[in-house]
């Protein structure tokens, strides 16, 4: 048995390494130009905040808040004023307290270490690198979390889907605070799951530390504290978790008060009065569309698979931590509202992919593969549609048409005659084939998204 376990561990380790390499490569390719530099000026602003904190001891960035003193300035990194930014000067403010400073420090430190000293030096080629590392780290964390919450097969599928999903790939390049919040939240959740498994209080304390760090990336990181509180069962652990995580989150307040207390309070008040612009149809919009920046939608079927899987998980008697996390962030997402930028949705993705992985794993090993077959057709169909856009291949359409017809009927027949094992095996083989095709189509579609393709995305 130990040798088998060893073999299994090696196999899982090898697989995970392979997925990490694939995920990293897909994220790096075209990362400088997709999304286009300047499509979200927050990316530069975040790095400027870090760079100015290092050089000036005061955060300087672009502010979108009303009632805060701003200084219209032209700064032209990557020549964004010749391409994506229409004419107007940037509303520079200092000290900039719109958000906590950790994302600024991550991207700004990398920019500083690579020799950037003035704001115009900052370029997407530099500042997107640490975000790609974090996004690749997410793949491993998703694997670990799905392994701890569900099963090795769910872990394998969730990691593979997150590594290759075009939406996760492109979103995982942007210098947005959500891309820092997510790994902190995932680490916190992994530690909580390990603490429960091995009954270790120290791990809960460490989980609390990372939950607090999530808030230091963005205030919506409070979701890491909320979900932790809802997952922890013992009262004593709960008190320690709350005390530590909130104290870490409060470092933002001490940071603000130390630099400029009056301005910090003014920004907090302005933030609290921000217009609620997410719209009343936010949930429908969230489930039915896959927005990536403020204007671009990159169609990807996997999040929808995740939402459907969430429905299946939520129906179970025992409340899954996955349901807790997704619905907690949904509550935060709706509360924090603001304008519905695509990156506000990034923290949903790891959990949607774990849910999708769970759903497909259930289809492969469980009693009912029919629903898994049907939901797999969503991302596969979308990907194939994108890949063969403008160049439809009649033979492929025929395979898709008759293949799916046959597979759905086969799955249905296997449910009508469950005693016929051969039918069930054939359906599972078909499901696996469909899954391999969906992942392959993910990779092909993701590789297609270069700057020329990006201009056509709307």
């Amino acid at each position: 048995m130990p040798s088998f376990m060893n073999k299994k561990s090696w196999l899982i380790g090898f697989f995970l390494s392979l997925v990490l390499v694939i995920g990293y490569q897909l994220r790096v390719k075209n990362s400088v130009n997709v999304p286009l530099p300047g499509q979200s000026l927050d990316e530069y602003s975040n790095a400027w905040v870090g760079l100015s904190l290092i050089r000036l001891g005061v955060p300087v960035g672009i502010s979108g808040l009303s009632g805060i003193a701003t200084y219209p300035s032209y700064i032209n990194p990557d020549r964004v004023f010749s391409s994506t930014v229409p004419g107007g000067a940037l509303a520079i403010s200092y000290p900039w307290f719109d958000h906590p400073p950790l994302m600024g420090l991550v991207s700004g430190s990398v920019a500083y270490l690579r020799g950037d000293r003035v704001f115009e030096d900052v370029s997407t080629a530099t500042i997107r690198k640490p975000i790609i590392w974090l996004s690749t780290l997410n793949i491993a964390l998703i694997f670990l979390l799905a392994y701890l919450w569900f099963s090795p097969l769910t872990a394998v599928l969730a990691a593979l889907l997150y590594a290759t999903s075009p939406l996760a790939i492109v979103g995982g390049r942007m210098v947005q605070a959500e891309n820092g919040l997510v790994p902190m939240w995932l680490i916190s959740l992994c530690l909580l799951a390990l603490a429960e498994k091995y009954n270790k209080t120290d791990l809960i304390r460490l989980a609390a530390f990372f939950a607090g760090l999530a808030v230091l990336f963005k205030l919506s990181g409070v979701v890491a504290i909320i979900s932790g509180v809802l997952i922890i069962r013992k009262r004593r652990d709960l008190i320690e978790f709350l005390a530590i995580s909130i104290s870490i989150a409060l470092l933002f307040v001490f940071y603000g008060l130390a630099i400029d207390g009056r301005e910090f309070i003014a920004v907090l008040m302005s933030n609290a009065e921000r217009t609620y612009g997410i719209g009343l149809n936010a949930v429908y919009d969230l489930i039915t569309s896959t927005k990536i920046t403020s204007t671009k939608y990159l169609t990807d079927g996997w999040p929808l698979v995740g939402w459907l899987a969430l429905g299946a998980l939520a129906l179970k008697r025992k409340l899954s931590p996955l349901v807790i996390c997704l619905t907690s962030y949904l509550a935060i997402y709706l509360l924090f509202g603001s304008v519905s930028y695509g990156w506000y949705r990034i923290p949903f993705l790891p959990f949607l992919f774990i849910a999708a992985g769970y759903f497909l794993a259930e289809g492969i090993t469980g009693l009912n593969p029919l629903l898994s077959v049907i939901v797999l057709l969503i991302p596969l169909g979308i990907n194939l549609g994108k890949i063969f856009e403008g160049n439809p291949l009649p033979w492929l359409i025929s395979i898709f048409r008759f293949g799916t017809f046959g597979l759905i009927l086969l799955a249905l027949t296997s449910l009508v005659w469950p005693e016929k094992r051969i039918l069930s095996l054939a359906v599972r083989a078909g499901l696996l084939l469909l899954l391999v095709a969906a992942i392959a189509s993910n990779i092909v579609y993701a590789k297609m998204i270069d700057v020329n393709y990006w201009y056509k995305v709307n």
Partner: protein
Amino acid sequence: MGFLKKYFIAYGIVVLLLVVFLKWHKEKSFSNDLLTQMLTAQSRSKYRTDDPCLYTLAGEPEVAGQYLKLTFLCPGKEARFSLDYRAIVKKTVGGAIEELFRLNGVTLDSSKLKCKQGGREVSLTDPIVNQDNIECLVL
């Protein structure tokens, strides 16, 4: 609760050190000159050109009435720009041109320009007001 007591003592020390460090760092590092340099200095990797018509500015500033129009007539081509008037620090013809040249990495000596405003010839030191429309010929 023994752990939390120790934790908050350590936390208090960390917060104190953080506050002292941030105040000291700001005191030691902040200056308006450095801030201006960081905001306005051109990137070390920026391609420089002496052609003011090579790069364009996309779109128009969305500031009602607070704009300045600049047109350059280069040999065989012309380029039109709309700048946010508020972002021009030196409110002169030369100041506006300097701001645009900085933005686009143009190294052309401004004395090689002959500028007009409403058909009237203007010098680089002449003042500007918002909504001015300046046209410069590259000599």
